[in-house]
């Protein structure tokens, strides 16, 4: 894999910010888009924009073929058994909320348990909080180890016969931890619970095989994996989706509409009420083509190497605290840190003045910040177009940040 060659496909990266060449290290928030994706969107709007699944005109057919073709690409991308199991949503958040409101409402009752972890993103906490409150169910948090990992023995203990849903992120957006989803899914199934996977930080960076993981649901977003914003995926095993009720009603999702009663279309369309996210799905399809051309295994290995390199270089800076997996342990391509007493916002502002974009704040994971005992952290997250040179720039920027604040202090 040649990151510098790949970078050429991303026009946005070829610019100066505050007088310095841009180094974009906020990929866990959203990735940049290659020309292949931008052109796919452009082509759709210029050449065959039409509504799908209706009308008999030529453009409508082309749009339908492209939209449904994107669904086939997603099926192959996550190795799902059937295309009916792929539902397009607005993003990970909508997918998780749909699972909670449809499957959750129908299957979770008073006294039942929902098990998540301390490291979850708000989008994989609040839908379950709301469901638990509504149903009188119990929301349980799997504890974390010092290195940010979850222990299987804790999972075995906390997931009980009362547990109906286990919902866990596969890769942490803060710690970079990679969770043992397959093993946890097995524990959940032994107790009769379903396994929901938040794959927002996984789909962009490594191969996902839902059949091998044997998860019941998977949610992810297009915009973190080179695709457009506003498109995401809810995967569900057919046996679950068939029994689930839609949570949005209207056009597109109906079969027969009477005055007082209606019936729904078959899967997956019963979950796609209203004019679907046509351009978004087509853009996501183009993003999948782009990532598969590079190879997901290649991407994963490359990002591990980048993360190792970043860990090595960053830990030489005095006063640096790095969260999550320890040096030498497997971590996804991101490093969350604090630089001595300098507040992460101040770190991010100085880095920005150097043309380096990082995230600062609580990363939509307030319970995790509480566990880490800090109100905010800074995060550098990498993608296919980042190189060791970018990390060198980051390290130089951090050294400057430290010097700058030691001057003013």
């Amino acid at each position, binding site marked *: 894999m040649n990151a510098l060659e790949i970078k050429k496909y991303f026009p946005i990266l070829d610019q100066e910010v505050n007088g310095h060449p841009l180094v974009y290290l906020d990929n866990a928030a959203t990735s940049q888009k290659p020309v292949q994706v931008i052109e796919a969107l452009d082509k759709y709007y210029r050449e065959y924009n039409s509504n799908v699944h209706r009308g008999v005109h030529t453009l409508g057919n082309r749009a339908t073929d492209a939209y449904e073709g994107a669904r086939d690409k997603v099926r192959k991308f996550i190795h799902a058994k059937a295309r009916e199991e792929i539902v397009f949503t607005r993003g990970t958040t909508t997918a998780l909320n749909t699972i909670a409101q449809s499957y959750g409402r129908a299957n979770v009752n008073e006294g039942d348990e929902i098990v998540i972890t301390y490291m979850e993103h708000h989008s994989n906490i609040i839908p379950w909080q709301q469901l638990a409150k509504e149903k009188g169910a119990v929301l349980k948090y799997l504890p974390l180890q010092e290195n940010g990992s979850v222990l299987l023995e804790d999972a075995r203990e906390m997931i009980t016969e009362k547990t109906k849903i286990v919902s866990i992120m596969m890769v942490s957006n803060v710690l970079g931890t990679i969770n043992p989803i397959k093993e946890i899914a097995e524990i959940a199934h032994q107790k009769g619970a379903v396994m929901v996977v938040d794959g927002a930080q996984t789909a962009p960076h490594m191969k996902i095989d839902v059949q091998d993981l044997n998860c019941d649901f998977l949610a992810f977003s297009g915009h973190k994996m080179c695709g457009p914003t506003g498109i995401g995926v809810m995967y569900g095993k057919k046996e679950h989706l068939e029994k689930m009720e839609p949570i949005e009603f209207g056009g597109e999702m109906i079969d027969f509409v009477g005055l007082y009663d209606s019936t729904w279309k078959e899967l997956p369309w019963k979950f796609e009420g209203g004019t679907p996210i046509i351009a978004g799905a087509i853009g996501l399809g183009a993003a999948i083509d782009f990532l598969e051309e590079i190879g997901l295994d290649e991407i994963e290995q490359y990002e591990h190497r980048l993360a190792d390199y970043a860990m090595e270089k960053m830990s030489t800076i005095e006063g640096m605290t790095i969260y999550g997996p320890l040096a030498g342990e497997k971590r996804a391509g991101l490093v969350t840190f604090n630089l001595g007493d300098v507040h*992460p916002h*101040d770190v991010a502002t*100085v880095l920005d*003045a150097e043309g380096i974009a990082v995230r*600062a*704040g*609580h990363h939509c994971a307030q319970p995790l910040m509480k566990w880490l005992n800090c109100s*905010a952290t800074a995060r550098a997250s990498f993608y296919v177009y980042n190189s060791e040179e970018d990390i060198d720039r980051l390290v130089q920027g951090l050294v*400057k940040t430290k010097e*700058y604040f030691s001057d003013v202090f």
Partner: protein
Amino acid sequence: MSFNNLDQLYRQVIMDHYKNPRNKGQLDEGSLTIDMNNPTCGDRIHLTMDVEDGKVSEAKFEGEGCSISMASASMMTQAIKGKEIETALKMSKIFSDMMQGNDYPNDLDLGDIEALQGVAKFPARIKCATLAWKAMEKGLSEQE
């Protein structure tokens, strides 16, 4: 080290307030208490104020946040102590205008606060600077 642009943001007086915050702490129970946070970044302020005869007789703050938010809180408490509620609220309005880069009347002595002018050039940091002021405004406008 020279970062001309950054030096406009991190003025010495700001860093001094950050390092040595004035009026840090909290007043006894029964004081006017406002908790506010900035949900997008995690900054948080706990502001307590005593009001006597229409004046802010005492103000203290506790909180977590970046240099700009904490320095701004320190400066704000310093500025409003002993001021009439009306004056304090007017200062808040002036501060808001300053942050938005608007013209503001100069009939009030803003003291250290003028050092925060540079924040207006860093749009991402304006919310940090205004947090404490919003908390004060919320507390005092209920007293009017």
